[in-house]
C-alpha cells in the first residue's frame, strides 16, 4: 500500500483470517454435524471434528423417500422445486420491474404518479405480515399447490423496480437524445441501450432475488398440500418441529448444507457482477 509496514500487513491478514473463521464457524459446525450419526449428535459435548458418516448421511438425505419415516419429497425433488421457484421469482420480478421502471422514468403519462405510489407502497412489507389475506386471494384464484401460487405473490414487491429506477436515472439524457435523432422508438431504445447498460444491475438483482426466492419457507408451507410441491428450506423448518422427540441433527444439518449450497454458488460465482451491480447502483 502506501508505506511498507510488514507487521501491519501481516496483522491485516491475521485479522482477516480470524474474521473469516468467525463467519464460517456456524457452517463448519453444520458440516461436522452432518458427518456423524444421530446418536453421536445427542451426546454432549458435541464433536468439533468431522466424523465418518458424511456419504451415508448425504445419500440418505438426497435419495431416501421414506425419509425419517414420512413419505416426504426426496431432497432432489424439493431442490428442483426450489430451483424452479427461485428462478421464476428472479426472472419474473426482473422482467416486470424493468418494464415498469422504464415506463415511469422515460414517459410522461396521466396516472404516472398514481402508479408510482401504488408500486412503492409495497416497498418493505414482507409477505409474513399479510399472509392470511394473501392466502385467501391465492386460494380464490385456484393457485394453491401450484408454481404460480408459490411465485407470483412474491413478485409483488417494489424493490427491484426501485433499483432499476435509480439506475435509469443515472443514464445520461444525451443517450436518449442521440437515439431519438437516429429515429429509434422507445422499445428499440430500451432493448439496444438501456438493457445493455443495466447488465450489472440485472446480475446483482438476479443474485438477490434468487436468494430471496430460494429462502422462502412460510409461504410454501401454507399453500402447498402435496409433498411433490415442497421446497427444501421449508422441509428443514419442518424437521426442526419434532413434537415428541429430539431433532435428528445430523440429518437436519446435512439437509441444511445441501440446501444452502445453490444460493451460495450463485453468489460466489456471480460475485464480480453482483458486487459491481450492487455497489454501483448506490453511487
Amino acid at each position, binding site marked *: 500500500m502506501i508505506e511498507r509496514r510488514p507487521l501491519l500487513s501481516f496483522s491485516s491478514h491475521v485479522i482477516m483470517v480470524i474474521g473469516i473463521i468467525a463467519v464460517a464457524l456456524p457452517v463448519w459446525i453444520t458440516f461436522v454435524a452432518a458427518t456423524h450419526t444421530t*446418536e453421536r449428535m*445427542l*451426546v*454432549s459435548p458435541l464433536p468439533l471434528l468431522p466424523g465418518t458418516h458424511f456419504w451415508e448421511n448425504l445419500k440418505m438425505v438426497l435419495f431416501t423417500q*421414506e425419509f*425419517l*419415516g*414420512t*413419505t*416426504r419429497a426426496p431432497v432432489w425433488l424439493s431442490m428442483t422445486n426450489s430451483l424452479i421457484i427461485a428462478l421464476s421469482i428472479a426472472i419474473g420480478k426482473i*422482467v*416486470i420491474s424493468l418494464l415498469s421502471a422504464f415506463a415511469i422514468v422515460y414517459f410522461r403519462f396521466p396516472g404516472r404518479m398514481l402508479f408510482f405510489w401504488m408500486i412503492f407502497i409495497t416497498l418493505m412489507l414482507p409477505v409474513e405480515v399479510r399472509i*392470511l389475506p394473501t*392466502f*385467501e386471494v391465492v*386460494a*380464490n*384464484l*385456484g*393457485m*394453491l*399447490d*401450484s408454481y*404460480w401460487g408459490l411465485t*407470483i405473490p412474491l413478485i409483488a414487491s417494489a424493490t427491484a423496480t426501485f433499483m432499476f429506477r435509480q439506475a435509469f436515472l443515472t443514464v445520461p439524457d444525451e443517450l436518449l437524445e442521440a437515439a431519438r435523432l437516429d429515429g429509434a422508438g422507445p422499445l428499440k431504445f430500451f432493448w439496444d441501450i438501456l438493457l445493455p447498460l443495466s447488465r450489472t444491475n440485472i446480475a446483482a438483482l438476479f443474485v438477490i432475488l434468487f436468494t430471496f426466492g430460494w429462502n422462502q419457507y412460510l409461504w410454501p*408451507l*401454507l399453500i402447498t*398440500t*402435496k*409433498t411433490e410441491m415442497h421446497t427444501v428450506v421449508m422441509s428443514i*423448518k*419442518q*424437521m426442526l*418441529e*419434532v*413434537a*415428541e*422427540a*429430539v431433532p*435428528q441433527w445430523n440429518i437436519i444439518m446435512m439437509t441444511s448444507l445441501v440446501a444452502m449450497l445453490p444460493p451460495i454458488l450463485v453468489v460466489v460465482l456471480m460475485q464480480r457482477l453482483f458486487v459491481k451491480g450492487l455497489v454501483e447502483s448506490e453511487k
Partner: protein
Amino acid sequence: MTLRKVAGAAAFAALALSSTSSFALTEISWWHAMTDATAERLEKMAADFNASQSDYKVVPVFKGNYTETMTGAVAAFRAKKQPHIVQVFEVGTASMMAAKGAVYPVEQLMKDAGVEFDKSDYLPAVLSYYQSTSGQQLSLPFNSSSPVLWYNKEAFEKAGVEAVPATWNEMKSASEKLVAAGYKCGFSVGWQSWSLIENYSAWHNLPTGTKENGFAGFDTELTIANPAVINHIGKLASWSKDNLFLYAGRRGDGLPTFTNAECGMYINSSAYYGSIKAQAKFEFGQSMLPLDTAVADKPQNSIIGGATLWVLTGHETEEYKGVAKFLKFLSQPELQAWWSQETGYVPITKAAYALSEKQGFYEKNPGTDTAIKQLSLNEPTANSRGLRYGNFVQIRDVINEELEAIWSGTKTSEEGMKAAQERGNKLLRKFERVSGR
C-alpha cells in the same frame, strides 16, 4: 407475458381438476402434524386402510407443527379448500367447538354414514375431553397421552434414592440426593403449563377456571392464581436456584437432559416413551405424578394431552362415508394396541387396553400403563375432565411467558400467576365476544 402466465395458470388449474376427478377412488385428505417415527406409523395406518378396501383412499398430508396445521386448516376452510380430517391439539378444542358450521361432529358423522359408534367402547377419561355440553362426541381422540414421572434407575441407585418419589416433598429430597451425587439437576419438565399447572390442578382436584373449567360456558374465568398453584410454582422456583429443578424450554426440550443422564428425573408426556427408549443408555422407569400432600390426601386423575381428529364440513356425503369407515378402522383393538405400544400414547378403546394387557405388554414393560392408570384413577370430576378455554393457544403462551419470568426471578410466583390469570382472562373475554354468540 403476464397474460400468458394467467392463461397458463388457468390451464394448469383445469388440468389439476380433471386429473383428480379421473381417480376411481374417492380421496380423503387427512392433515396431520406428526413427524419422525410417529408419522411413519400414521402413514402405515392410512396405507393399511387403503389396502383393506377399494373405494376410498386416505391421503395423509404433513402440514407443519400443530399450530401450523390448525392455521393451515383455518385458512383452507375460509377459502373452501379444507381437508376432510384435520388433527388438532387439545388446546384447540374450544376454538374448534366454537367453529359452528365448520365442524362435523364425529358422533353425527357416524350416525349419518350408518357406521356403528358405541361410546361405551371407549375409555371415558379419553373421550370426555372432547364432548359437547350435551355429551355429543365432537372429535375422535387419536394420539392421547398424559404427563408421567420418568426416572433414571441407575441415577437413583448411585444417589441412594430408595423409592420413586410419590409426593413433591419426596421429589425435593430425591433431587437433593441426585445433585449431591454429582448430577447436574434433579428434574426437568416438558410442556410446563400442561404438566405443572393444568395436570397439577386436575391431579389435586382443583379447578383451573370457573364454569367447570370452561365446559359449561364461554363466560369462564381462569382461577390459576390460587394459593395452591402459587405455592407450588414458588416452591419450584426456589428449587431451581439449587438446580433441583431445571427449566429447559417450553416444549420437550428437556429430553436430552434426561437421556444424557444430567437430570435424574423428567416430568413429561408418556408419549416420549419411544424417544427415551431409543436414546437412554440406562434403565429407566415411569411412575405416577407426585402428589402435593399439603393440597390433597390422594390424587384425583390426570388429564390428557395430544391431539384428536376433527372432521370438517363442506364435502360430499359419499366422501363422509369413507371418513366414517376410516375412523372406525382406526378404533380397532389390534390397531390401537399396536399404536399405543409403539408410541406410548394411551389406547383409546377398552378393548385395545384389554388386548395389550392380554398380550402381556404391560407386564413385559413395567410402567407403560402408568398414563392410562392415571387417567382412569377415579371418575373424572368437573375439575379433572379437561379444560375448555377459547384462545387457549395464546393463553398457554401467556402462562409460558409468566412462568419463564418466574423461573428467571424477574417476578415472584404470585406476581407471575396473577399476571397470567389476568392476561388470560382478557383473551377469554375476547373469545367470548367473537365466538360465544
